């Protein structure tokens, strides 16, 4: 299955080109220009990785990150930042973001972080599945009560 990515950034030209480049690499890409729009999309759709700009009008990166983690705790978030906002990105990692990247970044750094973040989410989901199976095997009645 393709890795589902949501790009959230208020710079339309950046979003457009990054989206095309990720599409060429066979990622399934959706874009969003604000934190508010991103959370609305997350309510309806599932994503493996969110690439999130730290500095945006309307809803800033940290607020958006909290909403994302509240809605979809397993979705991994990579924060994009300029120099001035590295501290915010670090704060984001404390709040559960997978990692951050400073603009402009090296291509390999971005693609590698996306793949690692997606793999981490996959492993986490697998562990949850295994735990559920164990629970069912050890106590089949729990299926009826859940």
């Amino acid at each position, binding site marked *: 299955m393709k890795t589902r990515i949501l790009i959230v950034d208020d710079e339309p030209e950046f979003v457009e*080109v990054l989206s095309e480049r990720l599409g*060429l690499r066979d990622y399934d890409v959706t874009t969003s220009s604000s934190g508010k729009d991103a959370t609305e999309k997350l309510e309806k759709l599932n994503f493996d990785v969110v690439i999130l700009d730290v500095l945006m009008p309307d809803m800033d990166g940290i607020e958006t990150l909290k909403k994302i983690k509240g809605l979809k705790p397993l979705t991994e978030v990579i924060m994009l930042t300029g*120099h*001035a906002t590295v501290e915010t990105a670090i704060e984001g990692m404390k709040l559960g973001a997978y990692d951050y990247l400073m603009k*402009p970044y090296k291509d390999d750094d971005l693609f590698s972080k996306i793949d690692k973040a997606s793999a981490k989410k996959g492993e986490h989901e697998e562990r949850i599945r295994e735990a559920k199976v164990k629970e069912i095997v050890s106590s089949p009645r729990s299926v009826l009560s859940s």
Partner: protein
Amino acid sequence: MREDMMTMSEEGFQFIGKMTASITHEIKNVLAVIRENAGLMEDLIAMGEKKGGVDPARIQSLAEKIGQQAMKADGIVQNMNHFAHSMDDFIADVDLGKTLDLLAALSGRIATVRGVTLKTRVPDAPVWIKTHPILLETLLWGCLDFAMDKASEEKQLGIEVAQPEGESVQIRIAGIDTPEDVCASGFSLERCEAIRRILGAEMGLTTEGDEIVIDLPRQVQVR
């Protein structure tokens, strides 16, 4: 006096730092777009090698986008250069229209992040005053910062030079919605008070509390 110097320096350095951080952030954004466009060009060429060719029109369009971003970066750097040169002389002849345009350009990104748009209206002819350029910019930034916080529902601030023919010149920042208690107690920016005194400026709010009015002497008194 010593305390005045300290608050003035603190406010001035914070202003310069804030503007520099915002400008460099903007430049990094432009570089990121250039980087992505160049990367897409590489991707398309690499794919074209496998598929037997790449559409020249697509490459040309990406090259044009890179050129446009380079021009955008040039505009940002020019503003930064003008800002840096406003510190050349402690007292100088200043065209208020140009100063307002520069300040609006420098603050553009900060305003956008705060959901506010800035619109300047300046006379066609230059409005010259002799003043302390960097202190004037610091004071105006203090007022603009206040105005962004108190912007009315439309979230659009109009900044203009008014009464250019009078004894003093006036700068007005419109589009704010000031709480009644601020209107009643009179408008002042404590952090800019020392700068205001050195510039010989008078500041206040209109009775409706929707505009900040700053009166500046045409020639600052040298102490």
